[in-house]
């Protein structure tokens, strides 16, 4: 193995550890942390890791501070971004049970997220509760919203307004969700 290859192999291992193991309260790792540990060429290391993960149906997901995907991000923008390892393909409904989600709870999350997106990212909690109450028992609605907030999918301000939080930005392709929802025939 050439010296250069060996160096990259060691950087890939280090990057994999940082990406998979939680270092802070939230999962994922910031760009500047990767730069500190791997050097200036960390975007290249991440690209190689991403290629490796492809065969395992996983990917390195970049979430920029500006909350939108950037075509050609600068190093500064990458430093401020957060990197996660996420699933690359789709989960089947059966698989969701394996990771601890009941269909009711997942549908509730999907409804809440879609509704907030449609209202430009900000909605009174009461409105979401009313929407969920159409199909979920009242006692479950509040518990579920609290759970979505606890997991980081939603956040709530002191005026009772709900917003999209960090986990939705990292895990949900918001454009695809709305697009598919509108295409569905009901």
């Amino acid at each position, binding site marked *: 193995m050439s010296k250069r290859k060996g160096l990259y192999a060691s950087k890939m291992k280090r990057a994999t550890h940082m990406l*998979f*193991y*939680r270092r802070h309260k939230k*999962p*994922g790792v910031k760009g500047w942390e990767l730069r500190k540990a791997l050097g200036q060429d960390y975007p290249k290391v991440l690209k190689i890791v991403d290629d490796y993960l492809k065969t395992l149906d*996983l*990917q390195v*997901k970049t979430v920029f501070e500006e909350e939108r995907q950037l075509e050609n991000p600068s190093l500064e923008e990458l430093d401020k971004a957060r990197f*996660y*390892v*996420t*699933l*690359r393909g*789709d*989960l*089947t*409904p059966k698989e*969701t049970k394996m*990771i601890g989600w009941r*269909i*009711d709870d*997942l*549908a509730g*999350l*999907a*409804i809440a*997220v*879609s*509704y907030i*997106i*449609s*209202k*430009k990212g*900000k*909605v*009174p909690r009461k409105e979401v509760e009313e*929407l969920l109450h*159409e*199909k979920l028992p009242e006692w479950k609605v509040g518990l579920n919203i609290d759970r979505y907030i606890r997991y980081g999918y939603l956040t709530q301000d002191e*005026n009772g307004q709900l917003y999209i939080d960090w*986990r939705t930005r*990292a*895990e*949900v*392709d*918001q*454009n*695809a*969700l*709305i*697009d*598919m*929802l*509108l295409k*569905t025939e*009901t």
Partner: protein
Amino acid sequence: MESKRERAKTGKEKLQRIIETVKSVEDHSLDPFIVDINEMICTMREYFPEWETPEDLSLDAETINHLASAIKLQSEWVKHRSTSLYTDPFLLEEKLLRISKEDMTGIFLQAWRPIVEFEQISLHSLAEAVRYWKSLLPLSERWKQFAPVEVETGIATREELVEQKILREEAFSKELEDFWQELKIKVAEKGEGGRIRYLDFVGAETYEETVQKAFMTSFLVTYGYATLEIYPLEEEIFIKPYEKPVANISEKQLISIPIALTVEDWMKWKRGEQP
């Protein structure tokens, strides 16, 4: 025709209404284009000459601030509508109400890429933990209980209690009786008509002693050992001892008489001047 005052009042009401409208658009995420910016600016321009006080001008500035945020909201609204994320919320709400749980979950699963993370202990961290455990002192050593120092109990003497100001040298009633006798003697020596000037009785070598005597005198009067004769016009106060303590004094309505005794009064008395 509307008076100037009435016109200013109407103008203020209109500005308040503008602020309320913009606020409700901001708070309820309503379509910001329901706000007619041009009309609002015309209203503000119309009433601007009426503003005279800083409060009026402050209200005017606040309205401009809210209008600016309404314009910002309009700009964001246009931007949002031009992106692919824009959907008519009513259309989407309809869809969300009609769609089945299964379909909704199916759609969400196509857009959901959950984060993958490991929760696993490594051999290295286990070894670290064992090293730490070995070097950790047992709780019994870390939280040593320090036995309190034993102090032998004993009996405090009266002198010690007096020294610590817990007890007075004499019982208070005894002290009061002695003070009453002192008053009687002073009246006999220096008094006139069975009474003595207040300051001639309480005045002493030091100001502290004088205050102490004034304090005791107040008890003499309260408990019926003596009485005060006050001549407000002459600004003179005399104290007159009773031959025997008056027992029914508490049956009368008691009044408080504040007597100021300043250092200046005491110094004047000491110099032999009338305070």
